[in-house]
């Protein structure tokens, strides 16, 4: 449970004023200040692997489809939090190192 809360904190999309257990996916980020702009800049600058590659990596290990992805920090390093749904309906959150594209940890399943 403690670990979940940590991850939930990490999943926070933006440095929100009040700490949310989960990022608020439903709210669109206006004015291009969302995490997708940071991600794009980082990918173009070569500091991160593209999301497509990350998804391919996960799909090779666990068949399923991506539901959503957020960007944050994992242990001080930029990381992707990929929400993944397996073909039999289980939802798993993969934490992936953004620089190397390696899967660091997984939640659920």
């Amino acid at each position: 449970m403690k670990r979940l809360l940590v991850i939930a904190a990490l999943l926070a999309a933006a440095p929100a004023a009040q700490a949310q257990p989960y990022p608020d996916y439903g709210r669109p980020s206006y004015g291009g200040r969302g995490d997708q702009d940071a991600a794009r800049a980082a990918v173009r600058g070569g500091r991160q692997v593209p999301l497509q590659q990350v998804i391919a990596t996960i799909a090779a290990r666990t068949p399923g489809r991506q539901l959503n992805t957020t960007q944050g920090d994992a242990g001080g390093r930029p990381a992707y939090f990929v929400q993944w749904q397996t073909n039999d309906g289980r939802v798993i959150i993969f934490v992936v190192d953004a620089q190397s594209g390696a899967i660091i940890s997984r939640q659920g399943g």
Partner: protein
Amino acid sequence: MPALGQPSLVRRLVILAAGWSLAVLLVTALVLALLFQQAAIRGFDQGLLELIDNLTAGTTIAEEGEVVAPALTDLRALRAFSGKYWQIAEPTPDGQLKVLVRSRSLWDSELKWPTDIVKRLNAEPGQPVSYNTAGPQTNERLRAMATQAKLPGRSAPVVFMAAEDRSPVDRDVRSFITATAIAFLLLGVGMIAAVVIQVRVGLNPLFALQREIASVRRGKAERVQAAYPSELAPLADELNALMAHNQEVVERQRTHVGNLAHALKTPLSVMLTEARQTGGPLAEVVEGQAEAMRQQVDHHLRRARAAARMQGSGERTSVADVLDELARTLERIFQDKGVEIDWDAPDDLYFQGERQDLLELAGNAMENAGKWCGHRIRVRAAPVSADRFRLTIEDDGPGLTPEQREAVVRRGARLDETAPGSGLGLSIVDELSRAYGGVLRLGEARLGGLSVEMDLPRAEA
């Protein structure tokens, strides 16, 4: 067109072609409608899946495993009874569902589910289950979709459900089916019309052949001559061969009859002459019997000839020509009596039979009239129907009493009583006209004498 109930080539072909086309059209229309409906439903389901994915991605698990729904921004699911609904539930041990979170649009109601939903969800994990159900509003028909997911941080599975009013899709499907039905109905009608025309046109040679055979039978043509398609040509050839054969048979019969006549006539003449010269009771008997034989022979030969001609391919003879010729001949014959013959016949009136027979029929009657008349004879030929005409010969002579008329005609049937030269002409006429299916009627002429009427077969002009 043949009568109903009679087998008809046209009908058979039309029914076959039309039946086949209609079956194909019907199946095509059904398949199209089915495909359209499937496509429409698939599109509809795509929307429901989208909503479910959003729910799945956005749902979070708070502490204590409480399910927290995302603040979905789909405005349609916010308005009460908007027609778009979602719901998050969890399976209960008894195989039913317990609703955890509902969209605002559901207001005070819940999305219903089929009783076996948990079983169906567990049968294929991860696969969505679709079903139809009633909506919260009156008469609202929903198509719903449910998927079961396991979320991180919660041991029990969660069921996400989404539903939407399906009436727009149903409306689309209905209007598509209506449009398709109308289009295919028009197509079908057009096809049947095309088939009918095709068959009629295709079978035209057959009708043409029938018309040509009819004209041959009516004596307007000798042979079937038109160029027929390869399927009918053999038939036409066979018909021609058959007609040629028939004619040959008739000719042979006629030759045979002629030969027989000649063969018998000479010995009979010899017998008659000898008997007349000899005298005596035996000679009288021989003479009487020989005369009777000769008349019998003549009578039967005429009948045979006429009957043979009736069956042959019809010849036709212009009535006016024959009457003209007879009138001129007879006026010469009865010159010293000063007989005037008025005759009247339409130019386009034809006797269906041989010239020889008409000459004999009209000639005998007119000659008879010539014998008995004062000096006037009237001959009239007029059509009475499409295939009969009436020939009337009147004179201004003494005429006959009804008993005599009776006797004259009866004598035709009992030739042995007939003395030569006394009205024999009329019995010949009676016989011949009978052979031609006609009737001889004797009556009083308006000129005062005898009127002879006969109905004879008429050929088309």
